[in-house]
């Protein structure tokens, strides 16, 4: 076998082979209709597969950008929906009885770091003070509460995750209206515990649990999960297990909620304490 310049020799051999085969295929294609159709079918199939594969690869690498765009578009649509609902409410107060301008501002964000392995998990979001995020803002998805913003830098926010034993969310059982603090059970990423539900409030397993709206951080009626089994604590209250809608182990896109009237609420709370002190 020739040993000199094996690579160059192989390249030349391959080039001549492809050239001659292409010439033979071209002649075959031009001189026989049957073979022409056959060659066209094979080449079209090959091209379709190649283009399909390259398109799949391109789609895969553009998924993040597409998701970002969808999250932004989603938020923009929600904002439009809110303003339309508000306009409808103003023109006809009897319609949409639960609707009101609840004074919350919504900012879409992406989680860039999160943990689920410890008892005190936290999140870092890609939005900061320059995007309008302030401390003590709530973080939600359409499936539930994710956490509360604890600290804000120019471009990022640090948040306490719902998967943190120290975080409690004021929650309400839909049918009975009973309200209590909902917290993570410390074990599973899709389960929580609703505590301090008085025994006189009846509920059925499967009832939906919502945010109560009693805190200045989260608006009311955000669905959180469904009630499960309960146990009586100290003979006085029920402790109900809640199967959360949102699995916190698979989370990427969230919405930050800022209460634009929190200062007003704090001021009125301050006035109330002053009145009480004056009475004493």
């Amino acid at each position: 076998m020739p040993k000199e310049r094996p690579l160059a020799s192989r390249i030349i051999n391959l080039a001549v082979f492809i050239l001659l085969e292409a010439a033979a295929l071209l002649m075959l294609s031009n001189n026989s209709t049957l073979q022409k159709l056959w060659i066209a079918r094979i080449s079209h199939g090959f091209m379709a597969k190649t283009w399909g594969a390259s398109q799949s690869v391109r789609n895969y690498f553009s998924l993040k950008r597409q998701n970002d765009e969808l999250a932004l578009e989603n938020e923009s649509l929600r904002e439009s929906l809110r303003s339309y609902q508000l306009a409808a409410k103003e023109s006809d107060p009897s319609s949409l009885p639960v609707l009101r301008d609840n004074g919350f501002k919504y900012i879409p964000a992406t989680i860039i770091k999160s943990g689920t392995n410890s008892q005190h998990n936290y999140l870092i979001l890609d939005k900061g003070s320059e995007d309008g995020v302030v401390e003590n803002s709530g973080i939600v998805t359409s499936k539930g509460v994710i956490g509360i913003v604890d600290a804000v830098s120019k471009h990022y926010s640090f948040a306490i995750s719902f998967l943190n034993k120290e975080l409690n969310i004021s929650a309400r059982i839909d049918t009975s209206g009973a309200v209590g603090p909902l917290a993570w059970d410390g074990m599973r990423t899709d389960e929580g515990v609703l505590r301090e539900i008085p025994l006189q409030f009846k509920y059925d397993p499967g009832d939906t649990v919502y945010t109560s709206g009693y805190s200045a951080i989260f608006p009311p009626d955000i669905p959180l999960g469904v009630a499960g089994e309960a146990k009586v604590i100290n003979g006085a209250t029920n402790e109900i297990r809640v199967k959360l809608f949102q699995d916190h182990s698979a989370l990427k896109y969230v919405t930050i909620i800022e209460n634009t009237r929190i200062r007003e609420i704090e001021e009125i709370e301050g006035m109330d304490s002053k009145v009480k002190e004056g009475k004493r």
Partner: protein
Amino acid sequence: MRSTFTVTYILMVVAQMLLTNYFHFTTLCMVTILPMMVLCIPTKVDTPWAMAIAFATGLAVDFFAEGALGLNALSLIPVAFVRKGLINMIFGSEPFEHKENISARKYGFTRVSFAVILVTTLFLAIYITADCAGTRPLWFMASKLGISLLASYLVSALIVNLLSYDDRR
């Protein structure tokens, strides 16, 4: 020596044209000696030249015999492309080192037969696939390949010594 080979080769091309034109026994059988002829091209001929010879040979048979132009050329070029690798695999590097042709006398009839079967199978597989162009069922193509391989091998084995002579004889 070279002219003897060339004349024999051209005569075999003519023989192949006659075989293609006049020896139609059944649609399931075709007889070809072209792969054996390409295999027996002297080892000192480089692969690109061997492919060019195969292309011209196939084209000549296509042109003078009934059939789609380019079909024999399409099937014969891969035989020339793998020829050196196949010879090296079956006969070792000796034919290249001594610049001699493969011969049944020196390397044994079994090894030459094995090489002829391999190149004929490659040729027929491409030829039958392209000739049927997706219009025939697999069993037909497989049957045609098997029967044609047997017939072609028998004819090639009978005349392989005409081309694969021993240079040192």
